[in-house]
């Protein structure tokens, strides 16, 4: 792309210097306003949760199960962790393998089709996934509200992110590395495992963390697939509903009882902590790998 600066420089000098300075200052001011519009809602949302959760906080919510706006959040916390761990295995496994295929083997139209399908999948609204999950998994397959139904729905939702980040990370591995591996007599598989994947690891892990953050924060698709229960998660994959944190937030926030609203914000706080931890871990990985790359 070329930039055509149609106006002659003379036209710049023709404009009053004062007006240009004012425009420049105004743009700068607009920039600061824009930055404030990013920072203020972020701080406001987080502070709002803290402000409502912290004063009435009791550590007991971590160790007691509850339902209907009373008791604790142990069932929701464990349920969310189980669902997230399941996403790690399912979406992580499928996404990384698929990403490897796209980066290493897929050439031509086949790769483009797979890539396109995955991007389309990423764009399907989550409530539509919940609808299909309910009719197909919960009812037609007779899984009932269950871990399996929730998990498959979350995995379908998050696989595209893992897949894309794996592919991009592998493509960014300098070709010199592979050539070097080849020169050392590595088989292609060895080169992939010992050189490419290792180099691409930070990017892959970041993609997985994004997937985990999405799955732990989702509500709509889980309402109609995971269900809810006051019991802690069991080993049963199907037929047993499983609780999750966002359910508590959504179901209790407008209840008239103070304890229910407190639980809603407790759940929001715990969820925020989990999501922020995932973000921090992601940042640390990225900055460590950058430092690593610099010292190499």
């Amino acid at each position, binding site marked *: 792309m070329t930039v055509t600066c149609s106006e002659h420089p003379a036209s710049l000098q023709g404009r009053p210097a004062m007006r240009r300075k004012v425009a420049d200052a105004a743009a700068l001011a607009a920039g600061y306003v824009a930055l404030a519009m990013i920072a203020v809602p972020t701080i406001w949302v987080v502070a709002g949760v803290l402000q409502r959760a912290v004063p009435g906080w009791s550590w007991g919510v971590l160790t007691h199960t509850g*339902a*209907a*706006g009373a008791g604790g959040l142990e069932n929701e916390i464990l349920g969310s962790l189980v669902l997230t761990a399941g996403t790690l295995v399912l979406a992580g496994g499928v996404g990384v393998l698929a990403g490897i295929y796209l980066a290493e083997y897929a050439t031509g139209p086949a790769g483009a089709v797979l890539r396109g399908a995955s991007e389309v999948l990423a764009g399907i609204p989550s409530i539509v996934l919940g609808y299909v999950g309910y009719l197909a998994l*919960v*009812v037609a397959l*007779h*899984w*009932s*509200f269950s871990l399996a139904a929730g998990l498959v729905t979350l995995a379908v939702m998050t696989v595209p992110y893992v897949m894309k980040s794996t592919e991009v990370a592998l493509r960014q591995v300098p070709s010199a590395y592979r050539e070097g591996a080849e020169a050392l007599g590595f088989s292609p598989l060895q080169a992939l495992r010992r050189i490419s994947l290792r180099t691409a690891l930070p990017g892959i892990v970041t993609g997985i963390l994004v997937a985990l953050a999405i799955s732990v924060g989702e509500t709509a698709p889980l309402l109609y697939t995971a*269900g*809810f*229960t*006051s*019991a802690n998660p069991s080993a*049963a994959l199907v*037929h*047993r*509903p499983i609780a999750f944190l966002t359910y508590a937030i959504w*179901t*209790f926030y*407008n*209840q*008239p*009882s103070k304890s*229910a609203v407190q639980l809603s914000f407790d759940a929001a706080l715990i969820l925020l902590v989990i999501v922020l931890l995932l973000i921090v871990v992601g940042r640390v990985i990225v900055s460590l790998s950058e430092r690593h790359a610099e010292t190499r």
Partner: protein
Amino acid sequence: MSLSKRALAAVLVAAGIGLAACGSSSPPSGVGSTSATSGSATSASGSTVSAGSVPGTDLAPPSGTVNLSETGSTLLYPLFQAWAPAYHAAYPNVTITPQGTGSGTGISQAEAATIDVGASDAYLPPSAFTQYAGIENIPLAISAQQINYNVPGIHGHLKLSGQVIAKIYTGKITNWDDPAIKALNPGVSMPNLTIVPLHRSDGSGDTFIFTTYLTDSAPADWTAGFNTTVSWPSVAGALSAEGNGGMVTTCAKTRGCIAYIGISYHSQTQAAGLGEAMLQDKAGDFVLPDMATITSEAAGFIAKTPANESLSLVYGPAANGYPIINYEYAIVMTKQSSASTAQAIRAFLYWALDKAHGSAPRFLDAVHFQPLPPSVVALSDAQIAKIQ
């Protein structure tokens, strides 16, 4: 373990006609949503009456480990939530997992047999019985619905009729000082305050019985029909809220609001300072929902309750009967995946209807439900006996 009189009678009948085949029930196989393992028998109760051999009110669940799942009505949910641990304490081998999702979900999952017991505030339509052979709606208790309002300065209970409420929800009456409201409340000084009609934003059994009341009591003014979601006529300033809880909090925050709220939220509507309307029944009396008026209204329907118990209890002819009440239903399929699941469901539902157990005041009072009249219990028991 103390068996109720009904259960005792069943036991005696069973013993008398020589059907007490001890231990004849084979170890149930784990099928469907029920995992059953033999061997963890808890008490002798299981051996008194054989599994499923007597259509009666056998309170004994199967001896193996059984998991029953329940989903549906959010009004029934707190009751199931109280029942589940109590039942588990009585029968440690039976675990009940309740979920509050919505009446529609309860019906649809019971139909699909992905759940053992569905729960619904609404009775099943005739089409459900033809479409899903063996589906039952079994009343468990009687609920009522309050009409609440947030009108500062009004102490005591405003009197309202179905016609006035229908006109409010269709935008024909827009102010609390409307002559029609004044006419029902002589001597009360009504403020000049815009009425904000509040309705549910989610599908709800509460909307179902509320719109049934409007349809029955004011057919000329209310034409939007009755259902869990209806096409609400467009009224300027009208608001919506999610769940009964959302109705209470939104109404408490909105001056001039009127709302329909399940009786199980009675203590919350009181705590929020909402007014509670006396509603005009068919006989012309203005009544509040309490034990006497709910029982009186229900009594008017006992004789009319058909064998399948599919019946609206709204706006009955009884004098001093509160006009918005309903059966709270369990939705169950008669054909179950295994004999032990069927036995567990039967035993649990019998227990739930027993005034010494599940229908005792210690369970029902917390949610302001009333127990079923004995003759309706008999109808429910007969339906429960069909679950095999």
